[in-house]
């Protein structure tokens, strides 16, 4: 065996073991009527689970909820993250300390973040609703119509730092000359940002948005820590819905088919994003 093949073989073998095989097995589960509670071999049911998933109103509701959550969270993270990255780029005083501190939330255990905010935003005990009450605002963060938005804000708290990290790196790799040329020509700061900085930053922006969207789609911990899908089914996200189907109702077959539909959606998103990037490169 050639040296390089021997070096890569353990990686490929382990990768097939922990990703490839489970993936194939998950596909097998998705075409059976497997239940965690039943004994004996599960029956093959073909595409029945998939047909059921596509016709399942609750699944599409969870899909819509997740899509709304991702749009709100990643949209806010992009705007806030860009502002903070631009501000940090010019920061000189206590530079490393400021950066380390502002980036810290992305390393905190998400379930802990969820519980911290459940406590902080709690209607009776929480500090933030009580402060709001002092200025005369009565706002129930986990009430109907608000809970999903609150979850998105928790996501913003934890993951804006990731946006900042990538955009800051992008900003620092932008060549200086076009910026200086624009300034010499008397362009305003806003004009430079819109017409010079952002276009140059576009590749990093696309990657940052894509990575955040893919990660935000998997939201589970915040829902599990705070609302458990409620009020009603308002905050039932895809990952939480699949978890419920598989673990609370033991329907592993249907849950696996749902997970595969989610995977299909993820892959579609990636393909579209890459197409866009290719187009941007050629034009």
């Amino acid at each position: 065996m050639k040296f390089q093949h021997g070096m890569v073989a353990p990686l490929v073998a382990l990768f097939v073991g922990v990703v490839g095989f489970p993936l194939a097995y998950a596909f097998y589960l998705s075409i059976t009527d497997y239940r965690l509670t039943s004994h004996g071999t599960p029956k093959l049911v073909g595409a029945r689970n998939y047909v059921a998933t596509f016709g399942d109103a609750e699944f599409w509701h969870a899909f819509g909820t997740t899509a709304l959550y991702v749009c709100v969270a990643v949209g806010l993270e992009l705007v806030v993250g860009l502002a903070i990255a631009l501000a940090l780029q010019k920061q000189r005083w206590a530079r490393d300390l400021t950066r380390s501190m502002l980036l810290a939330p992305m390393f905190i255990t998400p379930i802990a973040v969820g519980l911290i905010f459940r406590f902080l935003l709690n209607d009776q005990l929480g500090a933030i609703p009580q402060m709001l009450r002092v200025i005369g605002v009565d706002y129930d963060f986990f009430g109907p119509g608000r809970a999903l938005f609150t979850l998105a804000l928790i996501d913003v708290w934890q993951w804006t730092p990731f946006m900042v990290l990538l955009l800051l790196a992008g900003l620092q790799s932008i060549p200086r000359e076009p910026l200086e040329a624009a300034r010499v020509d008397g362009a305003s700061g806003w004009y430079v940002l819109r017409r010079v900085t952002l276009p140059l930053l576009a590749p990093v922006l696309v990657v940052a948005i894509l990575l955040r969207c893919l990660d935000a789609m998997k939201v589970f911990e915040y829902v599990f820590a705070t609302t458990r899908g409620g009020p009603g089914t308002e905050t039932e996200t895809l990952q939480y819905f699949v978890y419920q189907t598989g673990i609370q109702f033991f329907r592993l077959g249907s849950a696996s088919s749902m997970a595969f539909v989610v995977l299909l959606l993820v892959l579609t998103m990636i393909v579209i994003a890459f197409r866009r990037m290719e187009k941007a490169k050629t034009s």
Partner: protein
Amino acid sequence: MRGLIALAVCRVALLWAAGITVLFPVVWIALASVKTPEQLSDPFLLTFTPTLDSWRNVLTSGILAAAGRSAIVAIVTVGISVVVGSMGAYAIARYRAGGTATRFGMLAAQVLPPAVLVFPFLTMAYALRLNDTLIPVIFAHLSFVLPVVTWFLIGFFEAVPRSLEEQAQVDGFTRFAAFRLVVLPQVLPGIGAAAIFGFTLSWNDLFYGLILAPGKAAILPVAIAGFNTFRGVQIGSMSAAILIAVVPVVIASFFIQRRLVQGISGGAVKF
């Protein structure tokens, strides 16, 4: 000129606001961990005699054992990932071994929703009577830590000049010895960053642990999730447990933040 000053004021104000937003919840939790249940019902109470009751409760409860199990899972996962991943990443970076498929696989596995893989792990664990042990959790964590660590390392290995190994081979090293004794020391900082990042990924994961080991082998995030019954008495203990989970990884993160961008971008962007 006035515009520039206004802009500078906005910039500083934004950073202060961001800093306070980041610190406030953490400071609040730290305060809550040294309050009595009665003091907890008054959020504005800032001057009080701190009590260590919650900390005592947490340290005698199962939280420390759960933290130990989390550390075992993370260390074993990262250990395997670093050894297997660095060999593989080197072969991929230098010799294009495994072709585009292997390289793409490492990237694609990072976006795989955990809901896809978790049920196979669960049924296999049941079949082998390993459910509610750490072994399926380690396998599940390998499914996302291994690709991330390998992806990081491909970038770091590509940054090492080829002439180093060529010189080593001229000097009579075998290819493996050149890898181990000449190339590896060059990427050691990168390996350290990848290892710490992999550790935080494993340490922070709730989903796999919750499904594969919800009972006596619960890892730290699962144990912390158990505090969500939310009786007033438990908030102090919950706060202390959260701090135990958060502090180690946040401190570790300070050492790797600079290399993180380089790792995520596969070595393309340096910070």
